[in-house]
């Protein structure tokens, strides 16, 4: 394999990193696909950002507009959120109580993976080119050449971002990690409103980043129940790091 060519940028308040290798890793086609991927993320941010008062989601959350007034992607994302709520027995919810007790609409936990899957589409169009597109530590990977090695994805130590706890090879699929490290306790168990206990991070490896991200976030919200919940479904693998620093892998073949 040839060299890995990298690009990075900050969009949606997080670092976006791209690694390319093979046919179109460093030409105009690569530059164009990268620009298109970034434009997709900026578009998503304009619609979904909870940090922008004028985004559709912010206006929806304030009750100024209805779902029907929003671009169809909003209904799509809210549907994903609803499915995630059902699957996680209520631990994951895009609606949660705010500091003033009112319900806050925050689909961020669904939007990220979904958006990166969309952003990766132009990269899939690069012939004979392998890519790994990461947004804030969650990524979509693709290897075009069946003889080429898998991408090697390191899983960060939630206690120390300069260290890794594991490595996983990924050819076609997605890796998402949810945790508390360095971001404050931003994930809560929607059933209790409290931060999950006993758990430091959850990494899910799956086919699709939309669901890897949702699964990682939902599992993390479940706290000590995370590993049991993750193993109820086949076709995904990954890693749970507990608060005491111990780590356990999980996964079983689909079927």
């Amino acid at each position, binding site marked *: 394999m040839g060299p890995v060519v990298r690009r*990075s940028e900050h969009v949606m308040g997080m670092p976006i990193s791209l690694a390319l290798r093979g046919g179109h890793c460093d030409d105009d086609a690569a530059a164009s696909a990268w620009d298109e991927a970034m434009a997709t993320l900026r578009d998503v941010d304009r619609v979904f950002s909870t940090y922008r008062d004028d985004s559709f989601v912010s206006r929806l959350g304030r009750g100024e507009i209805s779902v029907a007034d929003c671009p169809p*992607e909003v*209904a799509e994302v809210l549907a994903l959120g609803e499915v995630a709520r059902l699957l996680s027995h209520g631990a994951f919810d895009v609606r949660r109580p705010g500091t003033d007790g009112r319900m806050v609409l925050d689909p961020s936990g669904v939007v990220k993976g979904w958006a990166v899957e969309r952003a990766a*589409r132009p990269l899939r169009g690069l012939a004979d080119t392998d890519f790994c597109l990461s947004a804030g530590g969650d990524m979509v990977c693709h290897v075009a050449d069946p003889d080429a090695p898998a991408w*090697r994805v390191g*899983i960060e130590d939630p206690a120390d*971002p300069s260290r890794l706890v594991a490595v996983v090879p990924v050819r*076609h699929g997605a890796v998402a990690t*949810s945790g508390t*490290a360095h971001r404050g306790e931003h994930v809560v168990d929607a059933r209790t409103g409290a931060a999950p206990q006993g758990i430091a991070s959850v990494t899910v490896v799956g086919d699709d980043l939309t669901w890897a991200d949702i699964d990682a976030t939902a599992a993390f919200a479940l706290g000590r129940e995370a590993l049991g919940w993750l193993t109820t479904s086949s076709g995904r693998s990954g890693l749970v790091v507990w608060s005491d620093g111990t780590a356990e892998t999980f996964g079983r073949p689909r079927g």
Partner: protein
Amino acid sequence: MRRISTWILSTLSITVLLFGYHTSTSGSATTAAETVISSSTSGSSTTTASGSGGNGNRNGSASGTGRSSNATSATTVTGSVVNTRYGPVQVAITTNGSAITDVSVLQYPHSNGQDAQINGYALPVLIQSTMAAQNANVDMVSGATFTSMGYRQSLQSALDQVGL
């Protein structure tokens, strides 16, 4: 001591997330939702109930200020049929203005014919020492710390700088 147990998945089924869950809505909606990739054409809606004569405002005519009449009316929005790589998908969502009260799937693919797109992956391999982590030779790093603050100290940041 490393635990090296890898296996390659050999099949891909879009119903993977259904295992262990019994809610029919969640099951079918999962299938559809994970495959809805774009909704570029306009959908349709029906107002199934209304308080004080509220309408669905599907055409975006609602005022951007104050609460619209939808706040008290149940509105069902039917998404357009989207052709995904797995087949056609269509979802309907019912809201009462601020919360989704129901999600139903009108159309979703039954075929498992996408096996050509097999996603093979392996179990993560645990790293037991700092030395191993530094020499792990990774291409990308997955982590929860990558906001602007965490990113700067991360291995991912170092990787990105190498390539620039």
